[in-house]
């Protein structure tokens, strides 16, 4: 069997064994409903409370400001649709976001557009960064919300969130950030950075899939996305996913315990990878080299289409991606690469390699060994190459 090199940690990560271990008792022993009075319910409640504190600590929030959701997409939908609907009543029907947000944000915005909201899509420029000044210029008296992602999921660029937060606070406009890719990679402090709402998702930092959270600044009130029972302070109904919540708590604590140490190790591997890959002629790195997530490398190779590249890498035991995971299977080129100004044929041909703690120098070696001959082979087949 070929050794598997999993290099798609931006799509999802393996659940850490320590996280699985923390979760296990909650399936078969501490399986009570946290809303129940009796002991087995209260034990589950303690697990949930503890995890809520872990999440709060990781981003500088209060535990009462953390609401568990089924993942990043739900958190994005809830924050954006909720704030929009709450402020529409006050005549604020304008929303600001960027052109290269995750589809959970963009499609929520589109759904609101259909309801009559107006959406401004800010440009992101060739370096993959939003300009704070553009945010300031776009804000109007009827602006309800600014939503700018903390770090992009395809090209890994880290946005100037503290600057944008300061602008929004000064102008009195609410600010949401999709921090799904940033947790454990960037120092996040929602208070210091003036963030009003923040989405996160467990499976991006070795926590379980299907669990996430919305941080929502104290006092902010907006309609629920999921109505029903009194869970999550009456704001998100549904019996709590206790093992998932406990796993999320354990994972976020591990991921944020030593961010500088964690990212230094990952970034060293990533930098060697970038330098090696850019030896391939007519290859390029997409997105700013400095302001980028420690584990992210996103390349284009002229004359090559992305899916073929991935399949050939898979045949060598290397798991990577082209565009984002949730749009593969679609024929569309990456909206992110189009947003930073790449032409269509190149936006079809990107390769994202995303590393995490679990990767090793051997993984980097394996990629650097496998990739050049595959690129060569595909180029030899390509009618676009050398013409």
């Amino acid at each position, binding site marked *: 069997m070929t050794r598997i090199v999993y290099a798609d940690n931006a799509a999802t990560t393996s659940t850490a064994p320590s996280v699985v271990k923390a979760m296990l008792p909650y399936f078969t022993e501490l399986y009570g409903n946290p809303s129940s009075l009796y002991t087995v319910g209260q034990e589950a409640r303690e697990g949930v409370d503890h995890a809520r504190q872990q999440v709060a600590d990781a981003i500088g929030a209060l535990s009462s400001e953390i609401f568990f959701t089924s993942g990043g997409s739900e958190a994005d939908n809830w924050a954006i649709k909720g704030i929009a609907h709450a402020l529409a009543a006050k005549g604020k029907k304008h929303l600001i976001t960027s052109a290269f947000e995750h589809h959970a944000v963009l499609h929520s915005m589109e759904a609101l557009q259909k309801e009559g909201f107006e959406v401004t899509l800010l440009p992101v420029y060739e370096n993959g960064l939003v300009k704070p000044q553009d945010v300031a210029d776009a804000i109007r008296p009827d602006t309800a919300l600014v939503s700018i992602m903390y770090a992009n999921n395809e090209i890994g660029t880290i946005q100037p969130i503290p600057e944008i937060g300061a602008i929004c606070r000064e102008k009195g406009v609410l600010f949401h950030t999709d921090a799904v890719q940033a947790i454990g990679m960037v120092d996040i402090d929602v208070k210091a950075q003036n963030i009003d709402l923040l989405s996160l998702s467990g499976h991006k930092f070795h926590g379980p899939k299907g669990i996430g959270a919305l941080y929502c600044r104290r006092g902010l009130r907006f309609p629920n996305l999921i109505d029903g029972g009194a869970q999550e302070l009456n704001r998100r109904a549904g019996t709590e996913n206790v093992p998932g919540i406990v796993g999320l708590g354990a994972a976020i604590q591990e991921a944020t315990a030593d961010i500088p140490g964690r990212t230094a190790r990952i970034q060293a591997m990533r930098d060697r990878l970038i330098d090696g890959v850019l030896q391939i002629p007519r290859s390029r790195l997409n997105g700013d080299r400095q302001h980028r997530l420690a584990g992210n490398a996103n390349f284009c190779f002229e004359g090559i289409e992305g899916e073929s590249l991935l399949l050939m890498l898979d045949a060598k035991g290397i798991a990577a991606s082209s565009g984002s995971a949730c749009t593969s299977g679609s*024929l569309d*080129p990456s909206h992110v690469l189009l947003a930073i100004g790449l032409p269509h044929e190149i936006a079809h041909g990107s390769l994202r390699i995303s590393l995490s703690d679990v990767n090793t120098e051997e993984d980097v070696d394996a990629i650097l060994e496998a990739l050049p001959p595959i690129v060569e082979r595909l180029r030899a*087949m390509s*009618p676009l190459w050398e013409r």
Partner: protein
Amino acid sequence: MAYSEKVMDHFSNPRNVGEIVDADGVGEVGNPKCGDIMKMYIKVDGDVITDVKFKTFGCGAAIATSSMATELVKGKTIQEALQLTNKAVMEALDGLPPVKVHCSVLAEQAIKSAISDYYTRKGIDPTPIVGPIEDCEACHLH
């Protein structure tokens, strides 16, 4: 996604990749905006396609359908090759995922386009024989 074994075989070991320098007909379909381009070269002796080669920029299915299409027409008469449908290519590959059907359409069109070129070069109007070569429907959705 989940390609069949046949697709993966033709993707991993594509038959007839390359160019024919002295081809009797060359066709190219698709466009880079869609992310798929197929270029086919044929060599014709009498009315038999004696050799065929392709170059493809595209997904796994695009490469596999190119490979299979060239296999299916090689050694056939032009008349037989014109009967080749995208369905036949798909069947020969044990099927394709729904989003990838358009790739088999491209392969059918690439063959037709090369035959058209062959007739054009001979000074024969290809349209009554080959019919119009329409863009793939999926292509228009973009």
